[in-house]
């Protein structure tokens, strides 16, 4: 049994000379709900992109359940159980909600290359299950481009969940949602996590949610990890406060 679901060692990635991610160490135990926070430009999304395989690692290594996945291509990472949602809504706009989920299921069940069956009828039941799980039942036949923004965030989640990940990377899942909608989504994530025993790493800016829901927090600033620990410890961390409030130039 691997100690950690995910481990990153000395990760580094630059863009045009600037280190977006600089010597980042991360170790997330299996089943944990970990939040990654930090001001804009801290490198959080870049870190996610590295973990998911969307961009290449310059230096360092990534381990998924003790397996070195540093060089594994992005699509293969999804196959081995890493799911991901995007900060900017990333669904298949010209497909219905059901079809969006069905696509993920087709990929998950290794049917993408099937050239002979008729796609329509496949995985109906499982699709309905996933759609119901995120609370979109009833919207199944509506096009992804015409459902409300909040529902599209749920669809985003559904697509990731359909692939039965053991590790879920959520990039600002509540981004753009109204304050009242957010707790419901986080509740949903928590419920599914407990049901399936998933490890969840999420990037969030809503501090209320972060501090109430997560078990551990990693704080990033300018590409580096500046603090890590339980929510209470992070809340009291002076360095973290400074980073968020600014260096206190004349605002004493």
């Amino acid at each position, binding site marked *: 049994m691997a100690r950690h679901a995910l481990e990153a060692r000395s990760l580094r990635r630059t863009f045009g000379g600037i280190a977006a991610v600089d010597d980042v160490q991360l170790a997330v135990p299996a089943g944990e709900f970990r939040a990654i926070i930090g001001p804009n430009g801290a490198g959080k999304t870049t870190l996610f992109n590295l973990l*998911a395989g*969307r961009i290449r690692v310059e230096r360092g290594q990534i381990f998924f359940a003790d397996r070195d996945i540093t060089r594994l*291509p*992005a*699509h*293969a990472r*999804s*196959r081995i159980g890493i*799911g*991901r949602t*995007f900060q900017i809504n*990333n*669904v*298949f*706009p*010209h*497909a219905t909600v059901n*079809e969006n989920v*069905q*696509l*993920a299921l*087709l*990929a*998950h069940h290794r*049917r*993408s*290359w*099937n*050239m*002979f*069956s*008729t*796609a*329509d009828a*496949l995985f109906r039941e499982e699709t309905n299950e996933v759609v119901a799980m995120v609370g979109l039942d009833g919207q199944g036949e509506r*096009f992804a*481009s*015409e459902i409300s923004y909040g529902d599209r965030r749920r669809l985003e989640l559904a*697509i*990731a969940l*359909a*692939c039965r990940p053991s590790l879920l990377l959520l990039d600002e899942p509540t981004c753009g949602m109204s304050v009242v909608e957010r707790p419901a989504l986080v509740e949903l994530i928590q419920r599914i996590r407990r049901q399936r025993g998933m490890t969840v790493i999420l990037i969030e800016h809503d501090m209320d949610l972060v501090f109430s829901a997560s078990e551990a927090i990693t704080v990033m600033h300018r590409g580096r990890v500046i603090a890590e620990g339980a929510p209470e410890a992070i809340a009291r961390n002076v360095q973290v406060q400074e980073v968020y409030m600014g260096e206190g130039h004349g605002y004493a």
Partner: protein
Amino acid sequence: MNDRARDEELDRRDGLRLTPRVRTIALSLLCSAVLVALPAFAGAPIIVGTTDTMTLALFVLSLNLLVGYAGMISMGHAAFLATGGYVAGLVSKYLGVSMLVAMPAGVLAATLLALVIGFFSIRVTHAYFIMLTLAFGQLVYTIFWKWSSVTGGDDGLIGFAPPQLLEGNVAYYYFTLLVVGVCVFALYRLCRSPFGRMLAAIRDNPDRATSIGVNVRAMKLSAFVIAGLFAAVAGALEAFFHRGMFVNSAHVITSADALVILLLGGRRWFAGPIAGAILYKVLFITIPHFTVYWLFYLGLVILAVALFMPEGVAGVGQLLKRRLADGTPRA
């Protein structure tokens, strides 16, 4: 999205979704019946013209796998049509084998070519892809043209023919109908399969496709190769029908005309290439009756369609459908 927009979206996607409707099956049966019965009441020119239209339709259907489903606009597709035809002809002429061996040889050669060209081309998208496929296409054209000792260059490749059984127009017509029919059916099944769905997903949002575990590059390459394969079949059919193969089959204008046919017929519709091919053939036969400058008028047609009816025949169909439906009250 309001009702009207929703209907539009459904209409647009209906073609692409290809849900098995009684209408589709009935229409296909009707068309098949007409085609089978054609030689009984049509004269030689129509039989010849229909044979050509069928191979043309197959060629453009293969292209639509790339353009309509995978979203890759290839301007070098004629390379595979030509290679299929030329290699089949060459093998038959110089190795003396029958058409039944030569055709698969041509298709194989073109498929391998598609693998090579595809390998380089699918790494890039959109404008780069168009440029690259155009360039490769012209490269193939230049080879066929300049290598005149083998291919006959400007004069074309002649000296091969279908087996005696299929020498007559009617016999070859049925042969073409059979082969094209099988290919169309195969393509239809392919488009409705999970593979076809994935291609559309890749077109819609390649990033998302990757993140659900789809090897986008491998899929695109497969689509490219499969498209090349079917194009080659069309090319081989054409070569043996005309008992000759000419360089203009490899020219970019042939590739461009295929795209024009997609525009005319509507590329979001499986049968769009078929409708477009028929329309194109009609134009091709009628325009030269009153002018030598057929390309000029084709150009005008393209502009008119692109500006005013970009969904082509399919678009006209949707418009009519909605006009007729407008009378019925909504539930």
